[in-house]
């Protein structure tokens, strides 16, 4: 988890020019860090590449729009990192 967070925080800091020390596991990418949807594409791209996964952004967005999920579930960084870990685990087990 910490390793995933460190990587994600570094990606966000570099991609969006946000000071690394302001990014915490409890930071909300949109509400706290001010990352908009277009900038988030660059972050998703870097995460996809770094972890060898495909963040299901469309599915997440749809769930939020449909009221089936909150943005916190996907865009608070500790939660985002947990999703990444799940996707990496699913990939390694082929599920």
């Amino acid at each position, binding site marked *: 988890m910490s390793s995933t967070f460190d990587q994600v925080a570094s990606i966000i800091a570099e991609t969006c020019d946000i000071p690394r020390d302001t990014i915490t596991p409890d930071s909300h990418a949109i509400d706290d860090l001010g990352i908009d949807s277009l900038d988030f594409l660059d972050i998703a*791209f870097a995460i996809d590449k770094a972890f060898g996964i495909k963040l299901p952004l469309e599915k997440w967005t749809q769930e939020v729009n449909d009221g089936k999920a909150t943005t916190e579930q996907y865009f608070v960084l500790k939660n985002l990192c947990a999703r990444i870990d799940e996707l990496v685990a699913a990939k390694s087990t082929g599920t």
Partner: protein
Amino acid sequence: MQLEYFQLVDRILDLNLEEKAIRVEAQVPQTNTIFEGHFPGHPLMPGVLLIESMAQTSGWLLLGVLKFERMPILAAVKEAKVRGSVFPGELLTIEASLAHEGSGYAMTEAKIRVDGKLRANAALTFTLIPFPNADIRGHMDAVAKRVGFPQQALLS
């Protein structure tokens, strides 16, 4: 090119969905009102239209990769470089390749060559949206026919 209709790609020369790459041809017109202002006495193809031509080339690639199920919309232009002027009457060969297909977005890299020499290149980001309505989808089918989109590529 039909600059008045913003159709900058004339013909698809090759669409390779396995390698996720495309090559198209685009003939810059000899005369156009654009050249009267850009620039008087020294007509040049505007750099933004070169970028748009790379975007449209990438768009055809993405339509093929996505089998016309999504519509690519240009969202970001990165690392765009106009390395040499493009003049009226020149024939462009434009290549694009898929750099990354994400969830709801894609990134491409594109190049424009004239007589084999690189004139411009760019890294582009697209959002991939559902076709807004059947009319636009129908319009794209008609344009696809005009530019020689290889329909058989969609069957593979």
